[in-house]
């Protein structure tokens, strides 16, 4: 796997490069700002792009904007956004195009090396990985939208949002694959997601989860 990194802090980009290298992931290029990112992606055609949220020149949310722009140019390009804080709004903006291959993680998670590499591969494979803190932000004070989900269904949805597969969810909650499958079917039905939409439904479910609007009521 080949990745391009956009990170202005040398300490972090060097650490990341070292860490990925030790896991056999090739870092094709490291760019210090968003403007160089598009060129680097065009040149190296990476399997995954890792972007920091705060980048020069103004150190605000350039990384989010760059990630969205990259995805607009190429919706199939997997992008993992790393940051020192997570905002649900940013997660929503990243997921807004409804296709997978998006990750949004705290930089803290990088130090859990094998988990991080797993997340990386998941995103590269078109999955969706949301930081546990995004999920916990959602659970606090949330009343509407997901009201009709049972406690177990919420748990399943939260793990889905973190990018886990059905089998992994089953293992985490110590239930059978079948039970997970049933819960997920219920979640899709309750959130009013069409049964025919295949793999994208997972992303849409997560998006609903992140989105404040009530899902279309299941009549």
């Amino acid at each position, binding site marked *: 796997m080949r990745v391009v990194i956009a990170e202005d*802090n040398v*300490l*972090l980009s060097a*650490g*990341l490069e*070292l*860490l990925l290298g*030790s896991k056999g992931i090739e870092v094709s290029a490291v760019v210090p700002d968003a403007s160089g990112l598009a060129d680097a992606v065009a040149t190296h055609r990476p399997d995954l792009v890792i972007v920091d*949220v*705060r980048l020069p020149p103004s*150190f*605000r*949310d350039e990384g989010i904007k760059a990630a969205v722009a990259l995805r607009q140019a190429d919706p199939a390009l997997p992008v993992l956004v790393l940051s*020192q*804080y997570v*905002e*649900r*709004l940013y997660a*929503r903006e990243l997921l807004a195009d409804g296709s997978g291959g998006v990750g949004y993680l*705290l*930089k*803290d998670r*990088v*130090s*859990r*090396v*094998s988990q991080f590499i797993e997340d990386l591969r998941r995103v590269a494979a078109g999955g969706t990985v949301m930081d546990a803190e995004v999920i916990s*932000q*959602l659970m*606090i*004070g*949330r*009343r*509407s939208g997901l009201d009709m989900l049972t406690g177990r269904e919420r748990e399943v949805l939260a793990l889905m949002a973190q990018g886990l597969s059905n089998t992994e969810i089953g293992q985490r909650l110590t239930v059978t694959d079948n039970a997970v499958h049933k819960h997920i079917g219920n979640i899709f039905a309750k959130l009013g997601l069409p049964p025919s939409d295949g793999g994208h439904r997972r992303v849409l479910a997560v998006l609903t989860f992140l989105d*404040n*609007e*009530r899902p279309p009521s299941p009549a």
Partner: protein
Amino acid sequence: MVLTYLWRCIRYHLVLLPSAMATVIALPLLVIAVLAPGGLVAVPRMMAILRRWAEWNRGRAAALLGVPVSPREARLPKGVGAQLRELLRSPESRRDLRWAVRHVATGIPAGLAALTVVGLVVNAVLEAPLWWLFPADDPLRLMVAFPVTGWSQALGLGLAQIVVGAALTWRIVPKLARMHADACLAALAPSSEDRLAARVDELTESRSGVLDAHAAELRRIERDLHDGTQARLVAIAMRLGVAREALGDDSGTVGRLLKEAHEGTEAAMAELRQVIRTMYPPILADRGLAGALNAVAAQAGLPVEADLDHLGPVPAAVETAAYFIVSEAITNATKHSGATRATVRLARRDDTLHVEVADDGRGGVDERRGTGIAGIRKRVAAFDGAVGVDSPPGGPTTITVELPCAS
């Protein structure tokens, strides 16, 4: 010592008399300017000159009395309209006019009286030895009326006039000088109300300065922590993570210590993140107030409609306060009100930011029961703003906040 003081008082009068006489022309000139066509342009300038003239005289009075005075400014704002408004508004202009009248009314009699008694001494000293130069049919008169026709009279009357003059000078010249100086300072001294008003203006300004500096400081600290401490912690955690990987499943001392160090670093990062969020939310730095409030609305536990179209530019301190106020009000609505939706409206009108958060919940907000309104009140009080809570039982609840934004 005493003579020096006397001499200072005499000098004061020597300048006072011409100064008061010159001031006589000020008032008629001003009246003419007001009545003359186009004279209104000249009035503010004349008043500025009068202000400088008053200040110069005030400086002399203060020096004589040995009291400190802070000089007033005589600067003109731009534009005749603004100048005239300032003239009508400012109590200082009225004081200048009052001073001019008083300076003339007390200065001329006091100056004349003082110089007359001093003149008694000077006359006697200069004229008595020269009595013989006066014509015989109109001889020199000393002690007001007594004619001098011989040396004995010149000497006697001369000495008598010097003694009387000196005694009078001694008695009344310093008194007159001080009386005039007092009157002059009193005419120009601000009333206690004016002093209070000026002090309030000063405090309002310095408070808004302090709040802005505070907000800017918080923003800087957030940035510094993000680029410095947080980044370093991430780098340390990364290395510890890689080290743990390299060590594998070692349950020995090194493995245990590494694990503890790694978990400790993660806990530190989480704590630091929490501290930063409550101190200065990163999204406020990233997206400004409108963006941050949209995020609050988007991630609230209930549908929130945000109307931020008339927000306009807002000082940093007000921005931070408004962010926390809206967050708190939305949290309240979500947790306690049973509302199904809420609206947030922010608009800047003139020098005030109006914030309104309304929900359709059950109302009956009880401020004593720690509903977060107290926190909002505290934040608003720091700005000398106003909080209104309208929450009848049965709802709906509307919280309005007004935050002054001194520009």
